[in-house]
């Protein structure tokens, strides 16, 4: 159906699968990324990084580099000590003081910035950093977070004072205390527990991190292009670090080749590149190599969870307890936020009455941990949803029945969980039923079926950030076209299409009349950026609000001209017309022209000039309370997944034969885009199980800093997916009914597949990723013991509320006799 036809019928643009407007440029190779920009006089920066995970820096000699041909500037931390300050404290309560441009006295992870060279060509810059001489005194690296927490472990960030920190556990204060956990556990009919670990999926966006700083010495203005997910927080962070007024810093993101969370920060190389441009007075670009990305860009971070779940004989979950240790790498970045939000949201979709969580964000001598699709929720779900299966098995209950008994029910909404989460609407119960109907549960040798359910926040009020807003400005142009300046920073989500649909729908104009500009601090109003499944719901609401304000002005003006009451009028077909009467009224174009060129025709009090409006939507959410409770998200999307998995006992390889996803995404603006988000989000969850993991050796060096050995699955490694089953339960908080779409399909995948693997083999896999050699080893060991095992480590009997016994290590196994 063409758009023109719809304009005639006035049919809504919401729920229409318009093709993404972004795709033409991407498919024809005309899209411009940071690395495609060619400003005159461009210089290239290469950063010298610490080869050691933990080392004192005794001396840095830059002179040999300065003498090389083509080299324009070389500097290190000592040179910028007074001009650059640590950053990260823009927001409230975030732990700061360790976000710095260069390691000064001590490097705390392999790949940390030590010095930079700026040259006419990339190769000359590379030669220059090779010529820099650094005298390191290697220190013992702390790679394992549990070892880093030992009282006698040396403190990695010894110069920084973290409130609420204990040794390397820089945030040791995370607690959830709901109900009476111990009483509930003692009363329960079955208590199950295990130690779960999740690996660090890296930042594997196709476009590596890149920025281009262009400082104009005559105006003193810095124009900064970056592959970022958040232009405004980056502008504010850069300005603060560099002591520049915000009027003098403009941040723009051109096309960005994916981010998945990993491009949402103020990074050292960004600050360094800006300084390089200021020092040289020339544009400077820095593009990270793939190795640098894997070593230094925050990945998911490793988590260790000692978790237990209590259940009554009828299958009711009565209590959940966890001790969570989050390896955050050498600097604090976003780590403790992920621990907090991920764990809290990870308790859904159950209303568990008694919860006891102790969480620790811990420094290690590894690359920093940060947001990656799912923001900690997949890790929490991986543990909890397996414990649900374990308890169900002990009680002889069906995994679907047990979940149906415990999930929130749509009929009970709105409801508030004991954790304080106000769930406005949900269809998770229906999603689970639909997924269970759709999957083939028949028995076959070495084949198992698994289930998992989750909820995912739709944006969130971060503990560190008392704000959850997005802004949009709309200007009607004098030819009736619509300029939209959208605050967030899309990098593949299709805002240019989705936001246009929302605005066109609210203004009754053809979607082709609407043009969306994003990711430019000079033209777009302040927003927090694109992350946390917030675009459709939060930005979409701001767009709708701004469009409604513009619409009210149009109707006021038209009512005056047509000498009628505003209630008689509506917008449709590019006009303001009489309600339900096609072809009547005035074209919007004429109204805009009047306001600009015939101002004597305007009603009294009507502001002449461009018809425009700006709106900000800040979600009605709460801050996290000290007992861990609170409603951090305005609404919650939900997913029930089911997998049918086959295991090859000989090679240990597993294969997904069938995978069903049933989702509640509320009202969907563009189903095509949302389906793409679900499939991409599934891929991220699948990758966590399949093999994506940055691995650090005992020396803290990354063992697989490239796609050759970082096992990101390719299209050929993925199962084919059914179209997602959507069971919409429109949000009653978000005015248009939308819910987050970007991450709900990541969260349950690892647990779903692990549960299916258990059904197929009897082995309970408690560590991600689950790779063929793991499976093989577990199967051989099960056979040797004559009973299925928990892999990789058996948890002996547990009998204390907080003390966890040391797990038993397996010896190296002979895989074949």
């Amino acid at each position, binding site marked *: 159906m063409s758009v023109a036809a719809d304009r005639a019928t006035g049919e809504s643009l919401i729920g229409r699968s318009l093709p993404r407007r972004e795709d033409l440029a991407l498919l024809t190779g005309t899209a411009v990324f940071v690395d495609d920009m060619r400003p005159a006089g461009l210089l290239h920066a290469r950063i010298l990084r610490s080869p050691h995970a933990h080392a004192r820096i005794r001396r840095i000699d830059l002179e040999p580099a300065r003498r090389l041909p083509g080299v324009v500037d070389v500097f290190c931390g000592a040179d910028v000590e007074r001009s650059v300050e640590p950053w990260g404290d823009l927001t409230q309560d975030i732990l700061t003081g360790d976000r710095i441009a260069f390691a000064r006295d001590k490097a705390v992870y392999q790949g940390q910035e030590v010095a930079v060279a700026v040259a006419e060509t990339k190769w000359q810059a590379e030669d220059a950093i090779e010529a820099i001489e650094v005298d390191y005194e290697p220190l013992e690296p702390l790679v394992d977070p549990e070892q880093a927490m030992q009282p006698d472990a040396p403190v990695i960030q010894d110069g920084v004072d973290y409130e609420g920190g204990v040794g390397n556990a820089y945030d040791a204060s995370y607690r959830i205390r709901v109900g009476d956990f111990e009483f509930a556990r003692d009363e329960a009919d079955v208590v199950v527990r295990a130690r779960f670990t999740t690996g660090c999926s890296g930042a594997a966006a196709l476009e590596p991190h890149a920025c281009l700083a262009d400082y104009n010495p005559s105006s003193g203005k810095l124009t900064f292009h970056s592959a970022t997910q958040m232009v405004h927080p980056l502008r504010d962070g850069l300005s603060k670090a560099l002591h520049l007024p915000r009027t003098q810093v403009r941040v723009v993101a051109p096309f960005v080749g994916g981010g998945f969370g990993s491009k949402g920060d103020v990074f050292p190389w960004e600050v360094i590149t800006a300084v390089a441009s200021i020092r040289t007075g020339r544009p400077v670009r820095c593009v990270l190599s793939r190795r640098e990305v894997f070593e230094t860009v925050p990945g998911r971070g490793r988590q260790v969870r000692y978790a237990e779940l209590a259940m009554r004989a009828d299958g009711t979950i009565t209590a959940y307890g966890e001790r969570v240790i989050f390896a955050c790498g050498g600097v604090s970045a976003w780590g403790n936020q992920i621990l907090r939000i991920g764990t809290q949201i990870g308790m859904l979709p159950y209303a568990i009455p008694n919860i006891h969580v102790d969480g620790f964000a811990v420094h290690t001598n590894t690359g920093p941990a940060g947001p990656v699709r799912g923001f900690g929720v997949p890790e929490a779900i991986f543990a909890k949803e397996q414990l649900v299966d374990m308890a169900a098995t002990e009680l002889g209950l069906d995994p679907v029945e047990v979940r149906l008994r415990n999930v929130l029910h749509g009929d009970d909404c709105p409801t508030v969980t004991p954790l304080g989460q106000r769930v406005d609407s949900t269809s998770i119960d229906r999603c689970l039923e639909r997924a269970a109907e759709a999957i083939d549960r028949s028995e076959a040798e070495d084949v198992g079926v698994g289930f998992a359910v989750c909820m995912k926040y739709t944006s969130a009020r971060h503990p560190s950030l008392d704000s959850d807003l997005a802004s949009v400005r709309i200007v009607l142009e004098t030819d009736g076209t619509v300029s939209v300046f959208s605050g967030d920073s899309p990098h593949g989500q299709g805002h240019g299409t989705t936001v246009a649909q929302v605005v066109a729908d609210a203004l009754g104009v053809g979607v082709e009349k609407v043009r969306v500009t994003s990711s430019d601090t000079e033209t777009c109003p302040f927003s927090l950026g694109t992350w946390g499944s917030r675009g459709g719901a939060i930005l979409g609401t701001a767009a709708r609000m701004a469009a409604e304000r513009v619409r009210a002005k149009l109707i006021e003006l038209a009512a005056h001209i047509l000498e009628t009451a505003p209630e008689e009028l509506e917008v449709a077909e590019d006009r303001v017309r009489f309600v339900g009467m096609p072809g009547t009224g005035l074209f919007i174009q004429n109204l805009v022209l009047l306001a600009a060129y015939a101002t004597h025709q305007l009603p009294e009090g009507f502001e002449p000039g461009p018809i425009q409006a700006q709106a900000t939507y800040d979600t009605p959410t709460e801050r996290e309370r000290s007992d861990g409770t609170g409603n951090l998200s305005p609404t919650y999307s939900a997913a029930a997944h089911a997998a049918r998995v086959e295991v090859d006992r*000989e090679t240990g*390889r597993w294969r997904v034969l069938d995978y069903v996803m049933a989702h509640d995404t509320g009202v969907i603006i563009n189903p095509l885009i949302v389906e793409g988000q679900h499939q991409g989000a599934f891929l991220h969850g699948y990758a966590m199980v399949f093999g994506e993991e940055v691995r650090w050796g005992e020396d803290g060096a990354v063992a*697989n800093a490239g796609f050759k050995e970082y*096992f990101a699955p390719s299209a*050929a490694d993925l199962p084919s997916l059914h179209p997602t089953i959507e069971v919409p339960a429109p949000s009653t908080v978000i005015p248009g009914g939308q819910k987050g779409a970007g991450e709900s399909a990541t969260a349950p995948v690892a647990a779903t597949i692990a549960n299916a693997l258990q059904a197929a083999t009897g082995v309970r896999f408690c560590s991600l990723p689950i790779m063929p050699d793991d499976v093989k080893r577990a199967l051989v060991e099960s056979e040797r013991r004559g009973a299925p095992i928990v892999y990789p480590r058996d948890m002996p009997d547990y009998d204390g509320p907080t003390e966890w016994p040391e797990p038993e290590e397996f010896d190296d196994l002979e895989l*074949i006799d």
Partner: protein
Amino acid sequence: MRPFEYLTPAGLEEALEAVAERPEETAPIAGGQSLLLELKSRERAPARLVSLAGVEALGAVSGGHGEIRVGPTVTYRAIADGEAFAAIASRSAVTGFLTRVIANIADRAVRTMATVGGAACQAEPAFDIPVALTVVDAGFEVAGASGTRRVAAHEFFRGVKQTALEQGELLSAIVVPDPAGSWRWGFAKQGMRAHDAALSSVALAVRVDGESRVECCRIVVGGAVKRPSRAYGCETWLIGRPIGEVEAEKLGERLAAEVVPELGGARFGREYRRSLLPALVRRALEEARDEG
């Protein structure tokens, strides 16, 4: 990467001169699929690259007299698409075997550029080409200033990224025997992802007599070992057995016992690589049987 001079000789002689001129700082480049990675990381930084792409003689395929000569710059794509061997009337099924192996290497983008000779000269244990060329008992023609010599597969592949090539020499042809008699081949590999090189691989060639008994065979293991390695013990065990009745499980056990894995990767250890061998040799055997 570092800046380099890029030479594009049109003939073999010119190419040989270019390579021999300053051999320590010169590298031939075929498809670049391995070399470019080493250049990017500065693992290697030759000042001169000699492209072999324009040397017609190195890209030719011809057959006759019981052998097939494959130019080293023939791409995987040309073989996988059936183009390279189209005009060859091979009397055995060896071209079909090589086509099956090559069509399964990496992905389309890599296959478009990568060459058979490049993979042979790169001589990485995980690659399929060295294993496949060893099992078909290929010969390698090496051209240098003093003429051309011929090297057998087991002499050509010397170790991890090590071949019989001396500095300044070029691989000028790969000679694949096209034997009479009923030879059959099979190949199986196990990588992590669809496009990954092998953790372990097994290739098998058997000739059977009129009663379908194994008369002669070669079993070659790759991936876990430094260079393509024959499993002579298993070969001996196989001789005389009717091909249809070989107990694959027994063969697998023997192979896993005979082969000592030398290489473990950053992730997959030797034990795991060894444990794959029974499944791989069974798959290779099945392929060889099915082709018969």
